[in-house]
Every structure is written in structure tokens, then in C-alpha cells.
């Protein structure tokens, strides 16, 4: 058995082991669950050192000795101060000294809070602006003609118009937006029948949205099952063992 076959076979055993929970909770499942957790934790610790801390912190801190007459790089020993600051975070587990953990947490919170105004505008600003859509058509032709094969000027002329079909689409968007937002007005009682209708339709529209998101979630979970089946039957059995 080659190294690849052994690797694939172990993968299949682990996959089957984890899927046995579908039948019921069992020791086989527990073993592979803990094996996975241990491997992931070990990998994370190693990767943190090799991929991040060594290059970004340790090497910079200790510098580099010159080789073959080449000048070395000086070490920045002030970076050593980062270690005790980071370690202070672990004092969160100590009743007596947990105040020390507030130092690194405070630094992180301060940095994070300082970014939030800009971050909020960067994320939601363009979405708010793009929600302002025109609803009055500028031409009587119902649908926008195709622009494939047209020169740039002709395509630009077509794209500069708002066709009734696009206007209707924009109207549906804006109606949905307003109805859904009206659902979140909790400060006053909606006595007006029209306003009540808006909030009710807002709730329905939200439900439709949640349904679409749930559908996507189910599709994703199925994709993961399909991939595992592909791994077992095609990658391992057909290609790895039977060499077809």
C-alpha cells in the first residue's frame, strides 16, 4: 500500500467514524471527534509559530547574524515587551490578578472601537446610496434592448434610459425596503390600516428572505455530504484503490 493509499484510507475511516453519529452517539465517533480536535489544536499552535510569530516577531526581535561578510540585521529588542503584554491576557483565569488581563483587552477594544465609524460607513454607506433607485421610466419601450454587438455610444445610449420593466423592478425593491423597515418601528402603535398593512407585508417579506437563506444553508450542507461521498467512492475507492 502506497503512502497516498494509506493517507486516503485513514481519511475514509475518519469520515465513516464521524458519520456513525447519525445512527447514534458511540465511542467510535467520540474517538475521531477527539482525534480531530487534538490534531486541529496541535496544527494551530505549530502554524501560529511557523507562519506568523517566527517571521513577524521572533526573527525581527533577535535580528540576523551576517554570513560570508554580508552585513547582518539588527534585532529590535523592544519587541520583547509584546510577550508580557500578551501573557497578561491569561490572567483572566486568576481571581486575584485578573485586572492584569484588562490591559491587553483594553488595547484591543480601543483599536477596534476607533475603527468602527469608518468601518460602518464603508460597509453600509454604499448600500444606502445604491438603495436610492429611480422609479419613473424615461422611455415608453417596455424592455431594454440587448447591447451585444453594438458600439459603445449606442450601448451607452440604451443604458442611459430607464425602461418600464427596470422601473417596476426598482419599485418592487423600494417597496420591499420600506415595508421591511416599517416592521422594525416599535416605538409607537400602528393604528392606521395602511401602516399596519405595511408592517404585516414587511414581516412576510422577511420570512421569504429567511426562507431563501435557509434554502442556501441546506444546499451548502448537502454540498458537504456530496463532497464526502466523492472522497470515499471516487477519490479513495475508484481512483486510489481500483486505479480506474
Amino acid at each position, binding site marked *: 500500500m502506497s503512502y497516498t493509499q494509506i493517507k486516503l484510507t485513514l481519511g475514509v475511516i475518519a469520515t465513516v467514524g464521524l458519520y456513525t453519529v*447519525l*445512527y447514534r452517539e458511540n465511542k467510535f465517533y467520540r474517538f475521531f471527534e477527539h482525534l480531530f480536535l487534538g490534531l*486541529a489544536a496541535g*496544527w*494551530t499552535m505549530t*502554524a*501560529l509559530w*511557523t*507562519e*506568523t510569530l517566527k*517571521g*513577524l516577531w521572533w*526573527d*525581527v526581535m533577535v535580528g540576523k547574524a551576517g554570513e560570508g561578510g554580508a552585513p547582518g540585521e539588527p534585532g529590535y529588542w523592544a519587541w520583547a515587551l509584546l510577550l508580557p503584554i500578551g501573557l497578561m491576557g491569561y490572567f483572566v483565569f486568576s481571581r486575584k490578578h485578573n485586572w492584569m488581563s484588562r490591559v491587553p483587552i483594553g488595547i484591543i477594544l480601543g*483599536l*477596534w472601537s476607533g*475603527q468602527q465609524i469608518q*468601518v*460602518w460607513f*464603508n*460597509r453600509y454607506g*454604499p*448600500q444606502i*446610496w*445604491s438603495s436610492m433607485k429611480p422609479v419613473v421610466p424615461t422611455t415608453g419601450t417596455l424592455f*431594454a434592448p*440587448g*447591447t*451585444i454587438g453594438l458600439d459603445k455610444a449606442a450601448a451607452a445610449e440604451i443604458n442611459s434610459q430607464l425602461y418600464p420593466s427596470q422601473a417596476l423592478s426598482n419599485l418592487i425593491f423600494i417597496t420591499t425596503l420600506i415595508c421591511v423597515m416599517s416592521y422594525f418601528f416599535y416605538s409607537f402603535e400602528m393604528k392606521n390600516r395602511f401602516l399596519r398593512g405595511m408592517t404585516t407585508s414587511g414581516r412576510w417579506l422577511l420570512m421569504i*428572505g429567511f426562507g*431563501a*437563506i435557509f434554502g*442556501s*444553508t*441546506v*444546499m*451548502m450542507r*448537502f*454540498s*458537504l*455530504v*456530496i*463532497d*464526502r*461521498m*466523492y472522497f470515499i*467512492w*471516487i477519490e479513495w475507492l475508484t481512483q486510489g484503490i481500483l486505479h480506474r
Partner: protein
Amino acid sequence: MSMPDPMPKKTLADRLGSVDRTTLFGILILVATIPLFFTLSVPNKPFEPTIDLFAKLMSLPEGSSVIIQTDWTVSTRGESAGEMEALLRILMRRNIKFAMYSAADPQAPQVARNVIMQLNEERTKATPPQRLYERWNDWVDLGYFPNAEATNNAMAADLSKAFGGRSDVTPQGSYANVFTSPVLAKVRSVKDVPLVIIVTASSTFNVIVERLSGKVPLAATVTGVMGPESQIYHSSGQIVGLAAGLKGVFDLETMMEYGLNTPGPDGKVVVPSDSHPAIPGFPGQINFAKGKRYYPTLHATLFLLILVVVIGNIGMILARKNKT
């Protein structure tokens, strides 16, 4: 002596409403397996955001460098691996260099390196064989960054400082600063790259949009569950293209095979789009992979789900009728 009461006979409603869970899982596994052994084709009309992603990737200047934030691991291999493979196939065939890093999971860089290794193997087996995509000369690995917010902020402020401490392996086997590699030699600011692409299965997508949108064109490939919420960023122009889930993978593969606004073998345009010019694909090369393989199987599993929901509801309706 009285006889014990016989077990009450199960009605159809009872049977429909109490199908054994293990049986259902068994059927699901069969349905998710059998179609994988057949070459089935499903008609496909690519989504506009994925068409935009393909058009953007195909319009990148040959020889230019892009940045890839790869934030997925084997836990979402079913969708993310297909996205990563399609994305890298396009970049490699167009000789676009890339620098990749991860800001979500320490396992992610290794998973991405595995995909590159697999694609290089595929390139050497191709007829005629294609050149290997070389680490250092064609792509560099910037490794793992433990905090997405800080990383993307630093990238927006000064890319040369954000990646300045990173080294990668040269063809001679020694380590050197990534900015001395052909990939990043001409890059000092995020504005020097024509595109930043994120392949993600996590909320780092929101973080990168918050920090980098408006400063550099952004594109994304996300999991299916993230699809609806991610599409908002495309509608608002914060990202230039998006592929979501298995459908996104199949869309990309379809355009890689047939191109955009390009006549197929029968003279018909397979993927038409008003927003883009004619873009030929890569006919005759390996374009269809995980997307085409998994997509029909996904339809079979969804059909099973709908069937089970209908059966369950019929059982419930019958049970209610019996009670009344």
C-alpha cells in the same frame, strides 16, 4: 384470564409521519452517491455576479499580480475547493501572478498549497504539458495572519509594511523577503494590484469589504449559505464579482468552457451577457471539474428533501383528519 391488547395497527398517517431517521440518512447517502458515478448534465444560466467575476478575471492584464485571501479549510471543501480550483485555473492559464495569505484559520494556507500542488500535477499531465506554476516566480505564500481586522487595515494603510516581514522560499531553497519576488516586486501599495480576491467560508468577507472596498477592486467566492447576504455587496458595487456555492463553481466552469458571448460548437451563444464584450473561454482544457460533478447530485438530494417534506406534510394532514 384476559388476553393482552394487540398492538394498535399503524395507519398510513402514522407511517408517513414516523419514517425512521436512520433510514432517511441511508437514503440520503445513496442519493448523494449514485449520481457521482454518471456523467449527467444540467442546464445552466450563470448568475450576473459570477459573469462579472469571470469577466474581471479575464480582463486582468497578463503578467500582472493579484492578491488572494484564502480563508477556507477542508470543512467547506465541497464548495470552496471547487471555487479555488476554478479561480486558480483561470489565473494560471492567463499567467497572472498571485500572492496568497489567510486571515481566518491556520489550516487555510496548507489547504490552498495543496490545491496549487494538485493543479500543477494536472498541468504537467495535460497534452501538450503546461509549465509548472512556480512558487516565488509565479506565486508567493504570505502565510497566516491571526487577525483579519488588523491585517486588512494594515493592507489598506501600507501594503509594504503589512507584508514586509514575510519571507517565502526561493527556487534555490533559501528564504527571502516576498517583496523581492517577481510577484510583488512592483507592488508597494494595495492600489498597485488590479484585484484582491477573497475565497472564504467565514465572516472575514465582511471585514475585508469594510476595510478595503473603495481602495482596490474586490471580488469574492463564498459558500452557498453566505450567498444571499454577499450579493448585497455586488448590487451596491462594493465588489466587482461574486461566485457563491456550488452554483458559483458550475457557473465559472461553464464560462471557462464556453466563454462569454462566444458562439459554442453549434453556433449558439451559450452564455450571453449585455454587460460585457465577447470573451472566449478555454475550450479543450480541463474546465469542468467539481462543479459539474457535484451539481446534478445536488439536484438529486434537493429533490429527495422536497419529497420528504411533502410526505411528512401529507402524513400530518392525514393525522389531523383522522383526529377530527
